[in-house]
């Protein structure tokens, strides 16, 4: 469902704010600084970062290939390790038996159980590779408009947060009210009318 796919879904945002200095350099630095990190050999279960549309698994922003004509094209990558519940259950049971044998007790305290679970999750996270998901982004900067090629709410939230951190700019989700509110021809009087608008009845009432 990406930019080059035969079928795409687009969530639209308006970019708000100003950058200090060159926009291209600000974007390049932000993309480099918050590029996706590999967590396959780490205990982390989730990583979120920027990547390239054409090389999502080997990102590099040095050559400026994200800047095309009058838009930026890059992608948001979310790597997530999903450890099956049954696997956690099995390893936790084994670790509990081992711990009880080591301590000579037939029970574990609540804090011991908690520590054991954290240890098991860390060990498993090191062994399980993260599954990546890549979501293309197009930023049409003359229009202050950004398109996310995904309609998943969690992806949108991850984008809004990382975008603000990376470029010190904010994203406002476009939907009918914000499209109306940002409309260049909207006078103050019309804005008042918009804010007070109530639903119309399209079905003809009997006798009318």
């Amino acid at each position, binding site marked *: 469902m990406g930019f080059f796919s035969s079928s*795409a879904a687009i969530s639209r945002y308006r970019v708000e704010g100003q950058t200090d200095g060159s926009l291209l350099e600000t974007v390049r630095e932000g993309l480099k600084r918050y590029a996706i990190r590999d967590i396959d050999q780490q205990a982390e279960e989730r990583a979120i970062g920027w990547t390239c549309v054409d090389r999502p698994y080997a990102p590099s922003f040095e050559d400026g290939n994200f800047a095309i*004509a009058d838009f930026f094209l890059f992608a948001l990558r979310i790597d997530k390790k999903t450890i099956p519940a049954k696997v956690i259950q099995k390893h936790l049971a084994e670790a509990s038996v081992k711990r009880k044998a080591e301590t000579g007790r037939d029970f574990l305290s609540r804090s011991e159980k908690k520590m054991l679970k954290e240890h098991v999750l860390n060990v498993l996270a090191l062994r399980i590779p993260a599954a990546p998901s890549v979501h293309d982004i*197009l930023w049409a900067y003359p229009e202050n408009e950004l398109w996310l090629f995904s309609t998943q709410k969690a992806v949108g939230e991850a984008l809004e947060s990382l975008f603000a951190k990376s470029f010190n700019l904010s994203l406002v*989700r476009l939907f009918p009210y914000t499209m109306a509110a940002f409309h260049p*021809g909207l006078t103050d009087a019309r804005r008042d009318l*918009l804010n007070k608008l109530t639903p119309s009845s399209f*079905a003809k009432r009997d006798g009318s």
Partner: protein
Amino acid sequence: MMDIAYALKRFDFLGKEFLTWLWYAVENQPDTLRRIDPEMAALEIGNRLVLHNKNQQSTETVTIRGDSAGMEEGILALRKGALVAEMSLIYRSGNESWHFSIKGETLDPSSVKTPKTGRVETSEDIEGAAIEKYHLYRRVTDLVQSLFSHFLEQRLDPRWQSAVLPAIQVWISTKEG
């Protein structure tokens, strides 16, 4: 501007009213639509239409799908007070066509199928292909924006209550399915 989460809920009806107006405009005002987008050859309702009838307790959903689907059920739902919550559209311009869906909640285009573009075979092809694809997507987002702007102008005008809404009500009550 008001809080985004609040505005989404408070103005939930606006996008659905727009899609309901659009169905009316597609059937009754093709010339107006062509004035809004002079490059438009035609705008047609596609093979999927979802209507919501919201009352205090629940929301009734009517879904019409399939290439040969009749619109009787949709018209019947409108007569009972439903609004269009989602519709698929076919936009034609020149010899090309764009297929896409929009939901009233966000007006985001989904299932967007643009006219075919050249194959990307080398990394050098990407830039040209991206520019071409961007302009094809832009036709859809600009179209939705222009149609919505036109609707909004009508919706905020006193003539909405005196002329536009009554005309839509007559269409709904007299249209044959």
